[in-house]
């Protein structure tokens, strides 16, 4: 019997299941592909699936409970926290992420936030609407210090770009070791000392019990009043109340947020309306060419499934 791969349809991420299958299936005639729309496990093909592919936050308890034959989960995201928290995730199911695809788009979004915040783009565009010619001094990124919390593949892609902008790059890691494009590496236990150095503190650390709420009031208090916080990782890493208080109280100059404790951000969240806070709707991973990029990485793993070399899967997340 052919091994079977189930793909969770994700029109909300512009990532259609059938489209994805049309790109990979011709290379793997020995595998059986099927797309599923329901995310609660009620659709056909779940019980016999050897592998399920999908965005981490689209996996559910129902889906994993129904997947009796499941051996492997491949996410289309770098972060897998939404899968790891599912109780129905069996120990023997191999979990792989899409590490290594998001570096460019996450870095580019971070630059958009850094530039738009320090140039006060909300005001610039308000002025355009009002036909107001108002020139203000604009800080340069050149010569400034960016502290990147997290030193994984995305952080490395960002560090490389920051160096090309003549910035000083400091990394904060739970296991500090020298890496290219980082001028300095500090331990996570020194997060507050690192935050004090930052003109921009960029959060790129995965969400885990250790990082839950780690960007809190004491970290924000350590930052310079001219500094900006940028979170493009996971909302849960930051204490949103503390960010609002720090920006309103002018402890920091502003914040750029792409991720939130609750997504979509509720209509009545106070975050929408704080001057100095720039919001983007969790677009860090989005790219017009995302599916094509994903196919390249996922195909290597599909080859392992087809050849029965499951021990050689890339980007395995231990759990």
């Amino acid at each position, binding site marked *: 019997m052919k091994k079977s791969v189930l793909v969770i349809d994700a029109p*909300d991420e*512009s990532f259609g299941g059938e489209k994805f299958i049309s790109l990979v299936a011709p290379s793997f005639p020995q595998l059986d592909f099927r797309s599923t729309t329901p995310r609660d496990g009620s659709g056909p093909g779940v019980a016999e699936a050897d592998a399920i592919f999908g965005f981490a936050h689209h996996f559910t308890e129902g889906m994993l409970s129904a997947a009796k034959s499941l051996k492997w989960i491949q996410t289309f995201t770098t972060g897998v926290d939404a899968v790891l928290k599912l109780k129905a995730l069996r120990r023997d199911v191999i979990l792989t992420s899409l590490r290594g695809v998001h570096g*460019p*788009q996450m*870095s*580019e*979004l971070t*630059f*958009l936030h850094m*530039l*738009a915040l320090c*140039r006060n*783009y*909300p005001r*610039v*565009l308000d*002025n*355009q*609407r009002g*036909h107001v*010619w*108002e*020139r*203000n*001094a*604009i*800080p*340069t*990124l*050149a*010569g400034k210090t960016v502290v990147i919390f997290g030193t994984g593949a995305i952080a490395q892609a960002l560090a*490389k*770009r920051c*160096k*090309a*902008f*003549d910035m000083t790059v400091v990394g904060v890691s739970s296991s500090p070791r020298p890496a290219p494009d980082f001028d300095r590496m500090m331990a996570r236990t020194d997060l507050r000392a690192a935050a004090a150095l930052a003109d921009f503190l960029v959060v790129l650390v995965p969400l885990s019990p250790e990082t839950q709420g780690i960007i809190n009031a004491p970290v924000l208090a350590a930052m310079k009043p001219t500094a900006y916080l940028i979170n493009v990782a996971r909302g849960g890493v930051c204490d949103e109340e503390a960010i609002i208080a720090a920006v309103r109280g002018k402890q920091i100059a502003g914040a750029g947020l792409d991720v939130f404790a609750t997504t*979509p*951000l509720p*209509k*009545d*969240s106070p975050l*929408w*309306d704080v001057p100095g806070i*720039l*919001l*983007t*709707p*969790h*677009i860090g991973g*989005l*790219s*017009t*060419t995302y599916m094509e990029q994903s196919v390249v990485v996922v195909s290597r793993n599909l080859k392992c499934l087809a050849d029965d070399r499951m021990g050689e899967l890339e980007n395995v997340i231990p759990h």
Partner: protein
Amino acid sequence: MAIDTTVLVVDPDAAFFRDRLQADFPGIRVLTALGPEDIGDKIANADVLAAMGSKMIFQEGLLERAGRLKWIQTFTTGTDKVTPLKGFRKDMLLTSTRGMHGAQMAEMALMQMLALARDLPRMLRNQAQSKWDRFMQIRLLGKTVVILGVGTSGENLAQRCKAMGMTVIGVTGTPRILPNFDRMVRRSELALVAAEADFLVIVVPYEKETHKIVNSAVFNVMKPTSFVCNIARGCVLDEQDLLVAIREKKIAGAALDVFDVEPLPADNPLWREPNVIVTPHHAGQSDVYNEQVYDIFGPNLKCFLENRVGDMRNLIGH
């Protein structure tokens, strides 16, 4: 010579320069004026005039009153407001601060490129309305940027674009091999190479040869998904042709920091054209502007006082 030298600094931050000059060159006399209305007869005593190279400061009649003037240091890359003045004599030295703006010019262009590609105006409108609206994001990675003008700004921009994983094509009057440019073509080939551009960024100085060289002939060959950014001078681009190209969807949009007429008149249609981002000629500005100016002005003054005119940076031939 130093004892007899008088430097007149005309600038809202003239005090900054006075303090630096007096610390570094104790022998000289420093006069300051906050603006043109404040110059009065100080200009008559000045051996050196240091100021922004703007029309506001370099008005007709100013240099006629500058009988002792030997050297003008502008705080700008452009010196095109100084050289046409009738009072600008052959024997006067003229230097610019060309090179000081590289980082901020390049950062401005990247800001425009990211804002256009990702439709930042739409995101800010959404935020103002508490609206969660995710839409596809165009990346810079893998795209092609055509940089018109390969001076300091162009080189700084190329360095950053390469780091973003872009293909970089330079368009210049003097093609030469430079780091971070994948290709270099002649200015006469602009209307050919524009067809390859996802982004066309204008950083070329304004001169007779560059007058409105970005016009309908260029827009007509560009991709309908491509964007134009102008941070050089308004007159390098034909604004009427640009409006037509955007309205006819020949290109996807533009970000303009410079205009034919500045400040941009309130009734100019560019203000409210969808897919046009208007900024108030602030590309060259920075929070360390005075320091960047002084990094060139200070050493130049040292050369001037030591009669090493040939060593001065950015000497403009005229």
